[in-house]
């Protein structure tokens, strides 16, 4: 990869250091060999391929192959590092982190489509302005509104006007979102936001063409089945929830594979296999949707699949802890494994009359419950060893993570019992504890009616039995759980959050008081935490911001709105014929960076 000249980043210098990387060099188009096929599998169906409208992982994976964002991540760099994609370079930041200026790379074209009426359609700055406005259009009802809501000058006001008039005025100028010329884009923020570059690498902010939306939009203004982008692949065939065929975009600009390896033999081997190749090499991606674990595994073992994510229940069949079984190794199967940038946690609703509140006896109750829960046993029994215990609210692979941090909340049922005794949760003649005022103490744990949900019920039942607290299970469908959770009507539940972008803020906002009824499912409003969180928003990635996160982690342990649980491993199985594959922690689609061995078509 030929390095592009670095732009001088004005203003937020700390951000500049983290972002100072160049994107891949443009190579002659149409390098892909249409006979080279990668067969991939999704364990669940996709919604559709409108970046503004679809919000499931699998739709997002396909969108990343079809559309371009302004920025993306370096394929090999760990932790994940931003590089330009459709932008010429990383953004110039000015006005103390409130203005971002980007140049769209010249000569990027949309895949030919009848919507363009025979004309060759170049990607321009206005396409991004239009695409981002769509995220705010009430008619589109985008699940990604939060990426820009409250951030860009004039954009919220435009959305408000659309609610009144019933129509979003895409032609109206928005002060904070401006295409200065054909290729120059300026974003003006209401306040500094050091995470904006990550947002610009997230697939919902991909560029779509207005003509395509005009030609194919449904009643909701969505284009789920006619994706037309500027990315390396185009949708060739789609049988919903069954098969997705992508073919290399013949008009794609291409690039030369030249990523810098990290330490370790895996990266060195990848560089050896791939360096200097014109990309993409693979001409056809065949994605099958297989919901059943056994079907996916047998299909992979039978050579019907090239890439497969190994979910927890299957792990013991092909993994001995963190390595492949001898049988799989003998077949030459490769494993790409890392801890996902995700966090699973158990939360208590801080507005609940039994477990909520910030008084000492309520805090003691929550801490005792947290201390009674055996995370290690969950990893062994429920997760088949495919997870690590979370010590810090920011998981591995995310900026701000501290691998050395150890939580003060440990598995200690004796300590938990002593704490409950001390704060007046006395055991009755029946062996069950009551509240300090003598009223019955029953914890209602909400979960889904599926296997992991049932296993977690049992884990918690065992934990509660050990400290003499009665537990009831509240079984709800996922949609109902979400509703009750957002309304702060659940007492306790286990939740998970996977990084939308690899920055601590994406996780620490989960306990911010103003996010109650949104992402703060513990409904926690802890003044000390909120104050520190607001301070962290004004601070770029730095030791100072990390110090704030440490203090916030201590507050989480002190008030115990959560019991930090686990971060799961991602185990990607790769057939020997696949070259250059390394699972990226944030990118969903790696197809444009890999190849298939010669003679193994």
């Amino acid at each position, binding site marked *: 990869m030929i390095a592009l000249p670095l732009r001088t980043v004005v203003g937020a210098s700390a951000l500049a250091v983290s972002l100072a990387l160049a994107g891949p060099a443009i190579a002659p188009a149409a390098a892909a060999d249409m006979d080279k096929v990668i067969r991939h599998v999704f364990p669940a*169906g996709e*919604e*559709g391929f409108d970046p503004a*409208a679809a*919000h499931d992982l699998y739709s997002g994976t396909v969108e990343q192959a079809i559309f371009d964002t302004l920025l993306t991540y370096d394929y090999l760099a760990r932790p994940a590092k931003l590089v330009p994609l459709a932008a010429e370079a990383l953004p110039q930041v000015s006005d103390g982190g409130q203005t971002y200026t980007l140049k769209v790379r010249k000569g990027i074209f949309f895949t030919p489509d009848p919507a363009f009426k025979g004309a060759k359609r170049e990607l321009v700055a206005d396409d991004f302005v239009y695409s981002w406005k769509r995220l705010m259009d*009430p*008619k589109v*009802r*985008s*699940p*990604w*509104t*939060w990426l820009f809501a409250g951030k860009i000058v004039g954009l919220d006001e435009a959305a408000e006007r659309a*609610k009144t008039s019933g129509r979003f005025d895409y032609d109206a100028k928005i002060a904070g979102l401006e295409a200065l010329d054909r290729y120059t884009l300026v974003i003006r923020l209401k306040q500094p936001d050091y995470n904006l570059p990550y947002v610009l690498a997230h697939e919902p902010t991909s560029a779509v063409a207005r003509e395509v939306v005009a030609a194919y939009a*449904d*009643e*909701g203004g*969505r284009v*789920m*089945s006619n994706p037309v982008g500027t990315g390396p692949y185009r949708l060739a065939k789609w*049988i*919903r*929830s*069954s*098969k997705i065929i992508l073919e290399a975009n013949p008009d794609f600009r291409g690039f030369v594979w030249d990523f810098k390896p990290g330490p370790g033999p895996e990266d060195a081997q990848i560089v050896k296999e791939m360096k200097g190749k014109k990309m993409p090499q693979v001409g056809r991606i065949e994605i*099958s*949707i*297989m*919901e*059943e674990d*056994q*079907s996916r595994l*047998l*299909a992979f*073992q*039978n050579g*019907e699949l090239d890439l497969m994510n190994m979910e927890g229940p299957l792990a013991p069949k092909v993994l001995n802890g963190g390595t492949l079984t001898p049988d799989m190794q003998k077949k030459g199967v490769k494993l790409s494994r890392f801890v996902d940038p995700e966090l699973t946690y158990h939360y208590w609703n801080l507005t609940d009359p039994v477990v909520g509140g910030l008084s000492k006896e309520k805090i003691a109750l929550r801490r005792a419950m947290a201390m009674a829960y055996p995370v290690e046993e969950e990893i062994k029994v429920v997760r088949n060893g495919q997870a690590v215990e979370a010590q810090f609210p920011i998981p591995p692979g995310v900026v701000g993570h501290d691998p050395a941090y150890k939580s003060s909340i440990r598995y200690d049922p004796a300590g938990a019992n002593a704490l409950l005794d001390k704060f007046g949760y006395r055991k009755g003649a029946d062996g069950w504890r009551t509240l300090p005022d003598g009223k019955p103490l029953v914890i209602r744990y909400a979960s889904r009616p599926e296997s992991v949900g049932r296993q977690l019920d049992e884990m918690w039942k065992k934990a509660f039995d050990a400290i003499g607290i009665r537990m009831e299970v509240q079984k709800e*469908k*996922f*949609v*109902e759980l*979400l*509703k009750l959770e*957002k309304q702060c009507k659940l007492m306790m539940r286990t939740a998970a*959050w996977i990084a*939308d972008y690899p920055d601590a803020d994406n996780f620490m906002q989960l306990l911010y008081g103003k*996010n109650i*009824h*949104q*992402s703060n499912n513990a409904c926690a409003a802890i003044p000390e935490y909120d104050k520190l969180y607001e301070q962290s928003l004004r601070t770029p990635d730095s030791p100072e911001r990390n110090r704030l996160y440490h203090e916030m982690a201590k507050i989480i342990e002190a008030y115990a709105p959560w019991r930090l649980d686990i971060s799961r491993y991602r185990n990607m199985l790769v057939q020997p014929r696949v070259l250059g594959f390394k699972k990226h922690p944030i990118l969903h689609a790696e197809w444009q960076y890999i190849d298939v061995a010669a003679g193994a078509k």
Partner: protein
Amino acid sequence: MSPKGRPEGEYRSAQHKGSPVGALRGEEAVVTAYIIRRLWQMIPTMLGVILLVFILFNWVGGDPAYVLAGKIANQEQIDNIRRQLGVDQPVWVQLWIFIKQVLTADFGASWSTNERVSNILATRLGPSLTVLVPLLILDTMFAIGLALAVAYVRGSLTDRLVMIVCTIGLSISVLVYIIVFQYFFAYKLGWFPVQGWGNSFRENLLVFSALPILIALTVSIAPNLRLYRTFFLDEINQDYVRTARAKGLSENRIMWIHVLRNASIPIITHLMAGLPGLLLGAFLIERFFSIPGIGREVILAVERSDFPVIKALTVYVAFATMASNLLADLMYKAADPRVQLK
């Protein structure tokens, strides 16, 4: 002799009077009147189905707006989605919309994917029927043939062995059949693909549906064989069979003509009762073999609280049930002209 298995129609011995042509015309008029009467009866039944589905969904169906809103959404955005889906409307307005949808056969678009419901049904029914129609034919042929054979040798060692095998077969979960068959026949022996769905009907039927059909046949043949055997045994013990034997008719003629014909009415009842199930696909088979059928859509719709899809499927299945019952009554008449529809 009295025909058996009559869930809908009532029967009495036919006593034709006058000329044969006149009797035939009279019979046609009776059948036509019967069909019209039954079609009329479908209207209140369908209204009942609509009401029941509507109440059940609103009671236990869940609110999809919270899923559709994404990971981070405020109440205003959720309300906007509810408004667009129409679930913020008064209950009677929502019910009227449902009735209009049934009358126009237009159930709109899926709430979760925006795909037209008509398109979902049109594209998913084909793969399901590719598996289920051959299965129905094969199952009926094998179950009737084997049931007749074991009924013929009733009480023998063969009969008992077949019944034991059937009982064991019945006791095993369909999931076990799927997992074991897929592992051995597809993965270990390589006789079939592990999963998948192709581009042509021929490929789908002969390559991808073969193992699913084999599994479904293994699962369904045991209970059907036992059931049909009892139908045949009921007939074999009738006086007319003894009379036929006394008259010197061959056993083949007695079994294949007389017994089979008289046992056909409960068999028809059983078969027709299963026909509407074709519209619901075969969920487990479709999931394990990645067949893009309607069964997977049913489960997804329930999981996602996708009411337009649930509404459409429920109404079509209800209609198909009523239609197949009517068809069954007409087939009784065809199978046994003595049956009279009233």
